[in-house]
């Protein structure tokens, strides 16, 4: 038993230590970062946070941008994925089967390599510098996994339920709306949260599609701090930004732990 707790502590240290170091840094004065043995007097500070919050544009702007893109992309994904997942389960032929394999391949694909073509599309149709249009490629990239996750949820529903509804005279769209969507709600929540997390964290496309400083998302904004200078990164301020940027995600993870885990693992099991 004792050995057990030692292992658990080690696991927690591994997962949290880098983050705790950020928290420590964010409350330290620049002098303290250089000399950790500094006396208590000017050891700790809130200056880093004040600097981040008062920057121009203010830090919460990026949080809002990321949230807008995240919610948009999640909604678009779910609206398109739910009917698709329903349909792909209903059709039982070779086409549907190979479609599922293609979706699986697409969801495994390292999407980073798609950035160039997506950038071309954005230029051609003038889709850059808009949070709404940015959600479209995000939704498209999330769709294969979302369809697979939801279709396995549909598949797990007892067939009788839908047939009982058919006999009652409930039409297809009403069935989806009143019977099936409420029943796959847990899977929908998992899928939605995973899509949201992906979108919130996405970097290469956000980097290439958005150049307007007022519209950049959180990962881009933070990377930009790093890019400002290779050698003299304002680490204190940056660490404060990291901590602030991580808080929403921590909340999501703590609140939706079950959904995230079931979403990720369903993908693996059913895929």
């Amino acid at each position, binding site marked *: 038993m004792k050995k057990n*707790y030692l*292992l*658990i502590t080690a*696991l*927690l240290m*591994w*997962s949290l230590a*880098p*983050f705790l*170091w*950020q928290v420590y*840094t964010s409350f330290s004065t620049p002098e303290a*970062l*250089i000399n950790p043995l500094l006396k208590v007097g000017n050891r700790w500070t809130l200056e880093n946070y004040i600097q981040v919050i008062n920057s121009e544009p203010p830090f919460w702007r990026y949080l809002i941008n990321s949230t807008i893109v995240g919610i948009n992309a999640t909604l678009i994904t779910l609206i*398109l994925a739910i*009917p*698709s997942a329903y*349909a792909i389960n209903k*059709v039982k032929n070779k086409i549907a089967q190979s479609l599922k394999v293609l979706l699986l391949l*697409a969801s*495994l694909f*390292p*999407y*980073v*390599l*798609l950035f*160039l*073509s*997506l950038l*071309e599309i954005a230029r051609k149709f003038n889709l850059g510098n808009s949070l709404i249009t940015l959600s479209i490629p995000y939704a*498209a*990239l999330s*769709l294969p996994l979302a*369809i697979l996750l939801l279709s396995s949820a549909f598949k797990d529903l007892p067939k009788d339920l839908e047939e009982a509804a058919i006999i009652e005279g409930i039409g297809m769209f009403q069935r989806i709306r009143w019977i099936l969507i409420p029943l796959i709600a847990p899977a929908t929540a998992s899928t939605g949260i995973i899509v949201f997390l992906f979108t*919130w*964290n996405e*970097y*290469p496309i956000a980097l*290439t599609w958005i150049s307007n400083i007022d519209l950049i998302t*959180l*990962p881009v904004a933070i*990377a930009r701090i790093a890019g400002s200078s*290779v050698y003299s*990164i304002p*680490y204190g301020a*940056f*660490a404060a930004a*990291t901590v602030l940027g*991580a808080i929403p*995600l*921590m909340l999501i*993870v*703590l609140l939706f*732990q079950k959904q*995230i*885990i079931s979403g*990720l693992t369903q993908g*693996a*099991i059913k*895929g």
Partner: protein
Amino acid sequence: MIYALLILPALVLIFIVFGFPIIRYFWLSIHASSVLTGLTATPNYGANWIRLLNDDRFWLDTIQTIRFTMCSVLIEIVLAIVFALILNQNFRGRGLVRSLSILPWALPTTIMALGWRWIFNTPYGPIERIVSIFSTNSINILSNPNIAWIATVFADIWKTTPFITLIILAGLQTIPTDLYEAFKLESGDKLKSFFNITLPLLQPYLIISIIFRLAQAFGVFDLIQVLTLGGPAGSTESIGLYAYLNAMRFLDFGYSATIIFFSFILLSLFCILAWLLINKIRDKYQRNML
């Protein structure tokens, strides 16, 4: 048919994002499309491909990318199995520990890459500080070409292990406990029960994680861009980063597309190879050991 209509909008979008680029990259790879041509594509009859074959930087990046991928995935899998075994036990606060252990995966790569840059900082980062207690020489983690790539692998492992841990954890939970109990009647050796029951039954989960992570690690980009910018002396540059630099810095879309298209081929070969290898190992062991 109505079902086709339901799925059509999603398929169109998926095709634009996944299907079209592959065709487009191939097409671009046989055209010149750069600042010199004013970014309008003009056929250049395979010049991009010849350049690629003779591009030492590209081949170095390829080797580095493969090195990064192999190291990262192998260590991750082993680590994830250990973590999953720990998390699969019953203890108080298991839910909270699980949540906290997902955090590295949930945080944006760029944010944590920047965090790692500070941790690897010379001389103020914690690692250099610990080293300085024992030695007067600094190891200059991020500016030593022999060490910097290990730092990128380390950061990648930290970030993606939770994901595999969860998949393996799900796998562990599908193994019925009676199997372990039945085995206990035969042998009390926990290690034997791991190799004879746990590992074989985890196989499908291991395969899916390995293939998925191979593909993702092969496309590594944002981590390296933020952590090292490919340096020092190009020692951490990946194919993904090189393609990005060609497009965004050198504004040579034709060549960038060639690199990406070539890496598609490489990646597919890679995954097929991994798949065959795994199957061979499975055939050899599964029937006879169990």
